[in-house]
């Protein structure tokens, strides 16, 4: 391993054209992801957090080339994957997989669990039918499902069990990176921790990296080594997990962390929720995306786009003109 980084994303952009009219011309653009950069080391977990519609799922799908990125560079295993086609693209899928949000939607209702888990091997032409069946049983065992599930259909299982099957499918090809797109947000709280622990166990056993997308801050904290906070198509802050919670720099991150409920009735926080709505990604503010809702907004925020910059040498990066100063003023 010459490069400790498995995945390097540089200024990734994903813009969706909006068509309309008789001639189906492009009439607008959705700036779903507008310049996202981060890096993910082998075997680690990067949590990607942000509210609905901020583009975090789109990042995941663009990385897996389910969407074709508009611009930017993605180095996976020291290889640019943004231009891959055909056979090479299929090989990429051996190294990178995805767990989907909704376990009721992500399993084809007309296929048995056996069919679903065998499919990765069929697509990549691995093994004889007998070997494939053996592998399917092995996978089921790994995710804690009984072997007789093979002949059953998805609708015969509960949400948690289905998500286990989704996980089994994603680890089938032994990928180096799994993009977990809100894998627990559709599940009951009681089952969430089981699934999260399963994911952590599998990571220890198989050594893959996770890009963990979620909107739930406590979930993210539980699994991540590093956290990136997204707002309206951009990363506003990246830091080590502990550091992020202890020492948030960006006003958006501060508001997010302040909003985490504390299970202690006596500890009332003097907490002001964020005002206003997220602006439409069709027409984002020109410079800093957070200007409309920021309590510390200055004239420069309307004029100049804040770049991600390090404050100290600990990898903590913030995209705010006043990072470092705000904390002082807050206290």
């Amino acid at each position: 391993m010459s490069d400790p980084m498995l995945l390097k994303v540089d200024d990734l952009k994903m813009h969706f054209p909006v068509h309309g009219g008789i001639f189906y011309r492009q009439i607008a653009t959705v700036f779903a992801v507008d310049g996202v950069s981060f890096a993910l080391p082998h075997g680690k977990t990067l949590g990607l957090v942000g509210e609905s519609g901020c583009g975090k799922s789109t990042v995941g799908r663009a990385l897996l080339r389910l969407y074709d990125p508009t611009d930017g560079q993605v180095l996976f295993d020291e290889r640019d994957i943004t231009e891959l086609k055909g056979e090479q693209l299929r090989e990429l899928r051996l190294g990178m997989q995805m767990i989907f949000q909704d376990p009721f939607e992500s399993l084809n209702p007309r296929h048995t669990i056996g069919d679903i888990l065998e499919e990765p091997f069929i697509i990549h032409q691995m093994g004889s039918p007998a070997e494939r069946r053996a592998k399917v049983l092995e996978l089921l065992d790994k995710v804690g499902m009984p072997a007789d599930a093979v002949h059953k259909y998805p609708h015969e299982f509960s949400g948690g069990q289905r998500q286990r099957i989704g996980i089994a499918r994603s680890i089938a090809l032994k990928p180096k990176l799994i993009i977990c797109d809100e894998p627990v947000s559709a599940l009951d709280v009681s089952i969430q921790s089981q699934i999260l622990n399963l994911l952590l166990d599998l990571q220890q056993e198989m050594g893959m990296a996770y890009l963990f997308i979620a909107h739930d801050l406590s979930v993210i904290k539980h699994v991540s080594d590093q956290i990136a906070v997204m707002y309206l198509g951009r990363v506003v802050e990246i830091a080590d997990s502990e550091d992020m919670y202890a020492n948030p720099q960006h006003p958006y991150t501060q508001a997010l962390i302040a909003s985490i409920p504390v299970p202690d009735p006596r500890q009332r926080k003097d907490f002001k929720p964020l005002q206003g709505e997220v602006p439409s990604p069709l027409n984002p503010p020109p410079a800093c995306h957070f200007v409309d809702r920021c309590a510390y907004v200055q004239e420069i925020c309307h004029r100049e786009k804040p770049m991600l910059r390090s404050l100290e040498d600990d990898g903590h990066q913030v995209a705010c003109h006043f990072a470092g100063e705000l904390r002082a003023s807050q206290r």
Partner: protein
Amino acid sequence: MALFTLNPLTRKKVNRFKSIRRGYYSFIIFTVLVLLSCVAEMLVNSRALVVHYNGEWFFPTYGAVIPGKKLGLDYDYETNYRDLEAKFEQEKDTGNFVILPPIPYNAFENDLRDGEYPPFPPSLETRHYLGTDTIGRDVAARLIYGFRTAIFFSLILLFVSYLIGVSIGAAMGYFGGLFDLLFQRIIEIWSNIPFLYVIMIVSSIMIPNFFTLIAIILVFGWIQMTWYMRTVTYKEKAREYVMAAKALGASNKRVIFNHILPNTVSIIVTFIPFSIANGIIALTSLDYLGFGLPPPTPSWGELLSQGSNNLESLWIVSSVIVAMTVVLVMVTFIGEAIREAFDPKKHTTYE
């Protein structure tokens, strides 16, 4: 394919279909009728089923023409088995006999008699159970052979138009983009061409036969299924299981055939009975107007037009109307039951 084998969801749908009595029984009766119409030659035919003559056995139904002389008659053309039966009955004690089909007339022969003009009313004695039409052809025979024509016409039309509709529609929905746009505009323009005029023009240039008529109707008939398939494919394509398959690296072919199509089958199946009914109605109305199959092909439309021109011979028009009503009602019952049984609200489980 795991389409019709073990999937418990499918089995549930089939059981539910069976539990809707009138649809299920209609389905059984209809299937039996279609199967019987395949062997209509053995039920409605001027040729006998079995002839026993001087110790020899003959089975004229599907064989070559048996000349009258071979069976002891004095002519060389094809034996008239009804006359033969009468002759054998007179002779008695020779051990010769003829077994005729229940309706011993074919759809083309004119049963004319001296001193009378057709149409003849229904009569058990002459075995014209539903009477004859204006030129002395048996109405029951024409009705049954007309049913066979109509049903196979609809089935072939259904198969080909669904084949075209499903392929183009699925491609439009799945690939989208320019292909979709192009076909949308083509369909919009195409569906504005008045269908009946085209048929009239075509049949004034050439006399359509069974297959050219199917082709002409197909030219316009593929649109409906294409439209539905496009919509359904669009919907299925956006679901996560399709994305999951793509994330695994599945090819377009695999995604379409293994993932999307099996999930659209229930919608296709729901449309089948209504398409069959539409096919029967289309053929009958074209025949009625005289733009359909050329005479003397037995057809319901032709009988209907004869009947409505000869309302004093009420047996012609009433038998066609009853037959049409019964068949169309049965098909509609089947369609309703299928729609009910495949209703996604009854099978989707959200926990």
